[in-house]
């Protein structure tokens, strides 16, 4: 059976001054079908964002494989993965091009996703209205608050109407009212539009929205002496 995303025994090691930090001791094996809503729950420093980066192709795992639509993309870039599965990504740290306005950022993202010019304005308007960003369409990202920039990221990711939406702490940096808006929105996207969602979070309240839940374990630590014994 072909899954939209499949990770098999993904592990990651990081060098550390006193040895090596090993994330995902037993390996992350995840199977995401089209239309799934998957949450990965874990504490701070347990490798949630690293897992997002591995799935998106921004970091390469130490071992294990990642498949997109049945194709092994473990060593492939984000661009290659997007060509297999149209993917929208929202990172923990807001990402926007500083010298472009909010509207221009959205327009560029849509252009890079191959959305026809005639459709872009409408999609931008929809996204901006949905996230209440009308007043800041012409503002530059650096003049905005962290919460506003997070909403821009969400608007940008949703404007391309992705098949797969990958979110790293989607409610991070948002105030309570904005945060309360995001989870029902994700539920609606998943239920009404069939968008597959993969989300990592430290908040059980957010994770409870998902159909499938993966608990990460705290990272292990391999000291240099143990490594020699191996």
């Amino acid at each position: 059976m072909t899954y939209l995303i499949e990770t098999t025994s993904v592990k990651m090691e990081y060098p550390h001054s006193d040895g090596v930090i090993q994330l995902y001791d037993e390996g992350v094996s995840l199977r995401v079908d089209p239309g799934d809503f998957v949450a990965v729950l874990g504490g701070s420093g347990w490798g949630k964002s690293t897992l997002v980066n591995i799935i998106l192709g921004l970091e390469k795992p130490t071992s294990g494989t990642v498949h997109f639509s049945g194709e092994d993309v473990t060593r492939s870039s984000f661009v290659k993965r997007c060509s297999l599965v149209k993917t929208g990504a929202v990172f923990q740290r807001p990402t926007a091009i500083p010298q472009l306005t909010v509207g221009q950022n959205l327009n560029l993202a849509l252009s890079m996703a191959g959305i026809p010019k005639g459709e872009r304005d409408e999609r931008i308007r929809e996204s901006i209205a949905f996230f209440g960003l009308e007043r800041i369409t012409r503002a530059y990202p650096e003049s905005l608050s962290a919460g506003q920039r997070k909403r821009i990221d969400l608007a940008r990711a949703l404007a391309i109407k992705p098949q797969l939406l990958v979110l790293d702490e989607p409610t991070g940096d948002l105030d309570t009212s904005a945060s309360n808006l995001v989870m029902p929105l994700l539920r609606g996207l998943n239920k009404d539009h069939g968008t597959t969602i993969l989300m990592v979070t430290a908040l059980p309240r957010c994770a409870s929205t998902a159909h499938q839940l993966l608990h990460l374990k705290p990272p292990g630590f391999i000291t240099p002496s143990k490594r020699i014994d191996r």
Partner: protein
Amino acid sequence: MEKPSWAPFVVGGAFPREFTDLLVIAIIGLAGLQAYLTRFTVGGVELGFLTLFLTVLPTCTLASLSNATRKLREELALFAYGGSAWQVWAKHFLRGFTCSLIALSPFLSLEIITTGYSVGSRSLLLVLAAVLGGTFYSGPSLRRVRSAEFAESYKA
């Protein structure tokens, strides 16, 4: 669906717009003036052009390294929008090439005019200096996006 277009980002980034770009143009322009006026040769190599090349390389590298935090934010966003390392390279190459070409264009024009509208070796050396400017302007960015720490920047 249209074909994904990276052109607005790459071409839009080619135009000099930062203060450091003006400095690059001024410094390379002065070195270009010296190269144009100096006709001393040592072992067949025109010293003026040697100075020009030696000026272009560090000037473009340093300009590219300046304001690295802002450039990193821009590169992170480009990747999040589905961009790739070569697009970042192309954007910075074009910027460095454009700055160098603007700085050297008066001398390039004069050279072409004085040689009867033919492209001589001195014209080619000036173009080569502009290409080197682009190459060295793009080097630090390419190194940054290919580094292991790049993806770490997505984490808060």
